[in-house]
């Protein structure tokens, strides 16, 4: 089955990309934008049928590879 996960920078960690995107949007006359933070999204197909087990597996992948826990958090959707 397919599991989705999101990896985002921790609160307080500088997000240069988000900052540049926010500035660009503002200059493109999206004056409504207050803040942008960019993260990563993963679509992971695993050979596991049980949803709970599949999610646990993906969580392990986040811990071990997908997220850099020094600066990032993850979330299984």
């Amino acid at each position, binding site marked *: 089955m397919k599991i989705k996960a999101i990896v985002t920078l921790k609160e307080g960690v500088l997000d240069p*990309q988000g900052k*540049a995107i926010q500035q*660009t949007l503002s200059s493109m006359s999206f004056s409504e934008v207050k803040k942008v933070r960019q993260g990563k999204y993963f679509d992971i197909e695993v050979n596991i049928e049980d949803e709970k087990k599949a999610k646990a597996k993906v969580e392990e992948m986040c811990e071990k590879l997908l997220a850099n826990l020094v600066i990032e958090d993850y979330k299984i959707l």
Partner: protein
Amino acid sequence: MKSSVIIFPGSNCDRDMDVALKKFGFKNQMVWHNEPEIPKSDLIVLPGGFSYGDYLRCGSIAGKSKIINSLIDFVKSGRLVLGICNGFQILTETGLLPGVLQRNKNLEFICKNVFIKINNNSNSFFNNIKKNVLKLHIAHNEGNYFCSNDELKTIEDNNQIAITYCNSEGLSNEENNPNGAIKNIAGVLNKEKNVLGMMPHPERMIDKYLSGDDGSIFFENILGNFK
């Protein structure tokens, strides 16, 4: 001959390009990205670098610059536009060239000499070049050219593939493809053949003390077309 090099925040091959253009006889001007208009030129160059830090997608933010509208008009007028590396990425992001440039297959930045084969020499960028294979230099993180099958067919049918990666003998295959680009593509033209985007940096190969001097051949040829 007049040329203009457009500088975006984060461009970093702008000076090198200026040096090269002047060396080969262009009267070059540097143009800041939010100038409303481009000065009178025969050739516009979008230089390499990391415009806007390569954030979001390479070239995407630069593609929203004020100057892009006049660039589009310039292209319509039939005059020449050259995008090197990040310039190539900007041209694809603005739709002036087909396809996209993705991360290198090995996910590593690559800086080295490569050979390229001239695939289409009926355009002002490559027309009088005697050699079929040139030694050029690449330095990029996102040079993995990609387009859909339909698009690939279109650019092949229109002879828009300008150059491909190859070995010193001109053989184009996967082994000589540094970044995973589809069909070993190193540079493409627009339909009208007045816009060229390419990953290699000819401006770094303009005298024999550097990695090589085949870049000179490239610039001399462009200039020759204006004489």
